[in-house]
């Protein structure tokens, strides 16, 4: 039977591949292009929004999460993403890249509630992060970077559905990865 099982899987593969119609690499490109355009538009919208009701708790030093073991990599963006491994399964999207000051990240359609903004950054310097919603703005907070950093956690309280605009200013072009995770 083991040999038969191999044959069964081989036939499954052949039969299924024959029915798969790939949307194509060009379709993937269109999707990525459309998303980037949407993200850019969302940044513009977030900057212009007046009535985003949001309370941004400030003044507390960012907490550091426990270090996470994982495969080491030379790529600083990937290392920054690894610092978010603790919240990898939580709903929400990871935003990552290199800070070429200032770098804007838009988080749209955020519902009311309490959140933690996880931010990991890789490099010799630090990242200053300012959180804006409409005309409200929380003073910039500084997050130290490292080679294999722990993600900082910044509490964010949102009182009504809104968009957030994160403004990142870094020293020495650090890599970053961030994710907004609902805490309650």
């Amino acid at each position: 039977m083991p040999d038969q099982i191999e044959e069964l899987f081989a036939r499954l593969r052949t039969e299924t591949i024959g029915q798969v119609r790939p949307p194509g690499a060009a379709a993937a490109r269109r999707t990525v292009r459309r998303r980037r355009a949407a993200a850019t538009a969302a940044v513009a919208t977030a900057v212009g929004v007046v009535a985003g009701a949001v309370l941004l708790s400030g003044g507390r030093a960012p907490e550091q999460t426990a270090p996470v073991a994982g495969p080491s990599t030379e790529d600083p963006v990937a290392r920054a993403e690894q610092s978010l491994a603790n919240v990898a399964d939580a709903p929400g999207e990871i935003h990552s890249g290199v800070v070429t000051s200032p770098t804007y990240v838009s988080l749209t359609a955020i519902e009311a509630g309490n959140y933690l903004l996880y931010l990991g950054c890789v490099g010799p310097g630090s990242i200053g992060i300012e959180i804006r919603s409409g005309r409200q703005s929380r003073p910039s907070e500084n997050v130290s970077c490292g080679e294999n950093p722990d993600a900082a956690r910044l509490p964010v309280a949102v009182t009504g559905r809104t968009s957030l605009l994160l403004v990142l200013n870094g020293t020495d072009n650090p890599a970053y990865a961030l994710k907004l995770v609902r805490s309650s």
Partner: protein
Amino acid sequence: MPQDIPTFDEIYAAHYADLVVQLYAYFGDRHEAQDVVQEAFCRALARWGTVSRYDDPVSWVRRVAWNLAISKWRRTKTALLFLRKQRRDEPQLAGPSAERVALIAALAQLPATQRRAMVLRYLADLTVPEIAEREGVAEGTVKSWLHRSRAVLAAQLQPSEAEEGRRA
């Protein structure tokens, strides 16, 4: 070296269909498998500069597709709607064979870890050590999963074959 880094198109062309088969065998829905694999490739493309330098970019895409499927596409609603619209022009295809249905159904009876091991072994062509590393378990554990899974599949699939034999 730039020539050593595979292009996105090369990786897509070489692995899209295979990854769909793997996800289909694991989750049992071919259309959903196609959607999550396409979404995983979109995510890879968005950061291709990074992903293409990984030792095994396909492994990254597979893992992302798997995670997307497990989380029931919570984060990919927009892309899925887009892809479903794309499928309107898809030609009508013949249904799956009885053998394929039986295999998918038998796989669905396996515990998730064993089913994953079977898919990775027989459809992704990973070795036992590679599966063990991916799953974070000992090689012996993987061998045990595969052994038990083969036994269960054999038991589930043999009666129908016998019935077919009797009918013939």
